[in-house]
């Protein structure tokens, strides 16, 4: 094994950051630094000068790193997205996993590939977890919205809870809309009418 590479993981959540770091260090002598605070991100990356920067696709601070791709002059990129050459299949796998990787020029592909694969696996797991959490949160919010809409109908039209729900459902079916959408429209309208 040749000299390990330096990897910077930009991740505010310590548990996630640790999971990625552990996977990368366990498997081949990479040196991993975790950066949780994204203020002055570009300057701190420039100081640390890592070979690879890994950052969540969903992190808005990702754009800050783009500055570095211009730092050395427009044609000699200090960092590039993935390996020079732009492997679209690899990139797509990374996007699905929710990770973006910036790689310094000159990092050899045979060293880089396993790092990226590991990162994709780790971030992919987080992505699934987050999608599940998001689905649960959304379901809860929709439930609350439907309850409010039911309440409005019960008061305005003197319906029972079951009748109010049935009316919402029927309206949604007639309009080919989701129940939550109809409920949201009713709650908004009721808010406007006071």
């Amino acid at each position, binding site marked *: 094994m040749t000299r390990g590479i330096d990897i910077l993981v930009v991740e505010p959540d310590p548990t996630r950051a640790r999971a990625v770091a552990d996977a990368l260090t366990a498997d081949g002598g990479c040196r991993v630094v975790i950066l949780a605070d994204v203020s002055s991100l*570009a300057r701190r990356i420039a100081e640390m000068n890592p070979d690879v920067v890994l950052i969540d696709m969903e992190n808005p*601070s990702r754009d800050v*790193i783009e500055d570095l*791709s211009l730092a050395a002059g427009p044609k000699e990129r200090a960092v590039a997205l993935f390996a020079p050459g732009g492997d*679209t299949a690899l990139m797509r796998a990374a*996007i699905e996993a929710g990770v973006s990787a910036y790689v310094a020029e000159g990092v050899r592909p045979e060293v880089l590939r396993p790092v990226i694969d590991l990162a994709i696996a780790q971030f992919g797991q987080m992505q699934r977890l987050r999608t599940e959490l998001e689905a649960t949160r959304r379901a809860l919010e929709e439930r609350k919205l439907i309850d409010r809409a039911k309440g409005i109908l019960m008061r305005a039209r003197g319906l029972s809870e079951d009748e109010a729900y049935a009316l919402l459902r029927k309206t949604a079916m007639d309009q080919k809309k989701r129940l939550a959408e109809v409920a949201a429209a009713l709650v908004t309208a009721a808010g406007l009418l006071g």
Partner: protein
Amino acid sequence: MSGLAIRAAYVPLVDAAPLIVARELGFAADEGLVLDLAQARSWASLRDLLAAGAVDAAHMLAPMAVARAMGLGPALPPVEVLMILSQGGQAVGAAEALAQRVAGLTEPAPLARAIRAAGPARLRVGVPFPFSTHALLMTRWLGDDIDIRTVPPPLMAQALEAGEIDLFCVGEPWGSVAERQGLGRILLPGRAIWAAAAEKVLAVRSGWAESAPDTARALMRAVWRAGRWLDLPANRSMAAEILARPEFLSLPPEVIDRALTGGLGGAGRFVTFHEGAATFPWKSLGGLIAALLARRHGLPEGPAVMAGSAVFRTDLYRLHLREAGADLPGASQKIEGTLSHPTAVASERGTMILGPDRFFDGWIFDPLDG
């Protein structure tokens, strides 16, 4: 129903309105198009989604498409511009301390001189992305010797608070957010610097529009009609309601309403989605953006202008929007920066009135020069 479908990416900003409205108000459905929207949290992620084929169209900063054509930034598949989505919408401002030292000035030229005199020797300017209309406006206004720094719009107020930037140029409502927190003040709308400041474009991978002509046509028609709807003042509050929803911008509707109508004052509209042939992707506009980028990044202007003009697809705009009712200009290029007032020009239907396109300092870009 012809069963067309497309997935398009957008960044949650007010000027993603044409795509969101095209979907939510049924303009896409009217064209037989199922328009699926994917939200990106950064411009880099949006660009990657489009490059990797995870989406087929995107709401993109106009200079991003031109930069790619010029070979600036990561080596990803090239993109093309089908139409302009919006003009204007930028708020230019200063950190509170600097704003106080230039208070009372409202004209761009004297304001620039005052900022130069009052600010540090090398001004640090926060913009949303290295390749953005915001960055080009600020260098055009203040000169090349400024430090352009990327700051994600929701973090602009924080960057002011931390003293990391002296000035900012950002899409609303993020300038107003900083102002309300007492961290900075809005000095000008972007349009005071360049009246026709092209902001976002509808971008696709090069060659995609030819490979899926029916989908491209349906998408362009739906977005064009959404833009026309958005520019009717009576529709703005409904547009704000739609954009405000949690699945889109997730901000209070009144904040979005102010961003759309531009509570910023100044003559003319703050942001335009349709009027004054705002959606026509003039080749000269691609050339102008390329010329500004070339100057900023030290590249020769001639090849840049060629590359930038080529990715603005006036031919597809003509092909797909003629029947939808879009008026089409006789030419595909114009000398940029000469119009101070709305001006009638030769067009197929004879109804085309171009909006003002002047720069604050009278700079003119002639695509046939050089």
